[in-house]
């Protein structure tokens, strides 16, 4: 590549590297800053002296956050919602996508149209709320996991993937006397690990990060997930009266540190799984985009 030797190109490479460095910094600095705020002494935080390195290192903010009784309950609720929601969604998506990936299935086109229409036109917030209410699901976990168990877009990804599995593999299993249910479990699903992994991760992130449905459907705060509590902490309605509480532990924790600690502790689970699973995330997007 001749152009690589030109002076102009060398300058471009330098500038480009600087741009990339700045971008990476712009993404990471908010996290580093919040992490240091959560670990710093209140005097430094209030004075606005904390950059991306903690000043007056201490873990008191985390101690205070985890002493807060609703946080622990919130974590339990979040885990419960995430596990149940993800499992239910994967099950529903699979039994819906597998039959629809069979091109010879009569009525397939009509069913796909029936499903995909809901991708473009949905009932909207109020009718959905009224329905959930009239079904008596308010204040139960089913209000969180049932209405959203099949996302048409994820269904599309799964159908596309199943449709790409060679028909011959299933044909030969059928000749061996296996029924469709067994073929699905024993042959199709093991061959679909990439899409299952990608969707599992999308769903985990969706349920873990969700707070809005809990806000409107769960009046009982004992059932609130941790994101809902973090939202209350950030808006200032939770951990109120923390001036008194701060006094208890020697004034070392500021409100900002408490908020930062709450934010960091709920994002940590996502941060921890991300490096190991990011290749599946990207794969999930690509499966969607190659569909012609």
């Amino acid at each position, binding site marked *: 590549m001749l152009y690589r030797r030109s002076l102009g190109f060398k300058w471009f490479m330098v500038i480009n590297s600087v741009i990339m460095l700045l971008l990476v910094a712009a993404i990471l600095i908010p996290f580093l800053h919040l992490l240091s705020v959560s670990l710093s002494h209140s005097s430094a935080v209030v004075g606005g002296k904390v950059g991306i390195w903690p000043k007056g290192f201490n873990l008191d903010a985390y101690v205070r956050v985890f002493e807060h009784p609703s946080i622990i309950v919130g974590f339990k609720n979040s885990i419960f919602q995430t596990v149940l929601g993800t499992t239910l969604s994967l099950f529903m998506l699979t039994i819906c996508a597998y039959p629809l990936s069979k091109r010879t299935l009569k009525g397939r086109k009509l069913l796909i149209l029936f499903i995909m229409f809901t991708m473009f036109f949905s009932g*909207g917030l109020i009718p959905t709320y*009224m329905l959930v209410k009239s079904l008596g699901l308010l204040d139960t976990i089913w209000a969180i996991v049932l209405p959203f168990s099949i996302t048409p877009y994820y269904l599309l990804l799964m159908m596309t993937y199943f449709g790409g599995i060679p028909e011959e593999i299933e044909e030969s299993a059928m000749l061996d006397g296996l029924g469709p*249910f067994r073929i699905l479990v024993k042959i199709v699903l093991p061959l679909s690990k990439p899409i299952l992994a990608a969707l599992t991760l999308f769903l985990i992130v969706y349920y873990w990060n969700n707070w809005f449905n809990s806000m409107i459907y769960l009046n009982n705060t004992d059932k609130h997930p941790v994101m809902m509590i973090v939202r209350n902490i950030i808006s200032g309605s939770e951990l109120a009266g923390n001036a008194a509480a701060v006094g208890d532990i020697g004034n070392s924790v500021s409100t900002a540190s408490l908020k930062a600690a709450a934010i960091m502790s*709920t994002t940590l689970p996502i941060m921890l799984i991300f490096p190991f699973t990011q290749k599946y995330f990207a794969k999930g*997007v690509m499966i969607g985009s190659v569909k012609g």
Partner: protein
Amino acid sequence: MRVSPYFKRYKAYYIMLILPIVYFIIFRYGPIIGNVLAFRKYVPGGSIYGEEWVGLQYFKMFWNDPSFWKAFQNTILLSVMNLAITFTLPILFALLLNEILNKKIKTVIQTISYFPNFVAVVVVVGMLKEILSPTSGIVNSFLGYFGIDPIFFVNEPGWFRTIYISSDIWQFMGWNAIIYTAALSSVDTQLYEAAEMDGAGRWRQTLSVTIPQILPTISVVLIISLGSMLMLGFEKVLLLYTPSNSVTSEIIDTFVFRMGLQNNNYSYATAVGLFGGLIGLVLVSAGNYISRKISGFSLY
């Protein structure tokens, strides 16, 4: 009765579909039918589909409501500005990333760039509020060095759109660039070699080879995002909303939420929601139709 061989073979597939179809009828079409509430009067404790027909009463109500039109205008403005910026930047980012020669560094940058896509919106807004805080925020203490008085960014109506759009860039630029990065990596290297032979420099190659090669991807993404442009990040807007910035931060979705679930004007809010939903449906269908005509790609 004789069972046809077709049914014998496909019976199991239809059995699998029973539960999903029931789900779609109840939870997806139920609320769609529930939109009749927009034309009917709701009585607390009564049917969710309302008690009596009132025709277009609720539509006339919001049509004559200046606060609805303010929300409508805010939605359009924010959508257009957001689309213009968040559509262009991922393309530029992908092009620049493509020029990084070291494969490992490239992967690391890309991975970091799309991590924010998985950060909860509550957390994103929480971070914004901390960083932009007038008392302890890093931005205001930085501005303080230049003698600028602290600005209460999240309360100022004039800053709302800037905050919304910049955080959208932060959250989604990397993620939205993945599709272009993939398109770039599949460009035939022979095309570059041929261009090189013709004496084209890197800039010339970008203009004459790279961009035409990824143009189909760009146009598909553009049409799809034009179609779905009104789907703003409702939760983010709701979290950023304060009474003092409501002049710019009230959009149709938050208007529906406030009217319906906070003030219990269910029929009124349903009417507004239905109106917004129909505009969205028209845009998406148009985008999808054009996309299929031009490139053969469509969502359905």
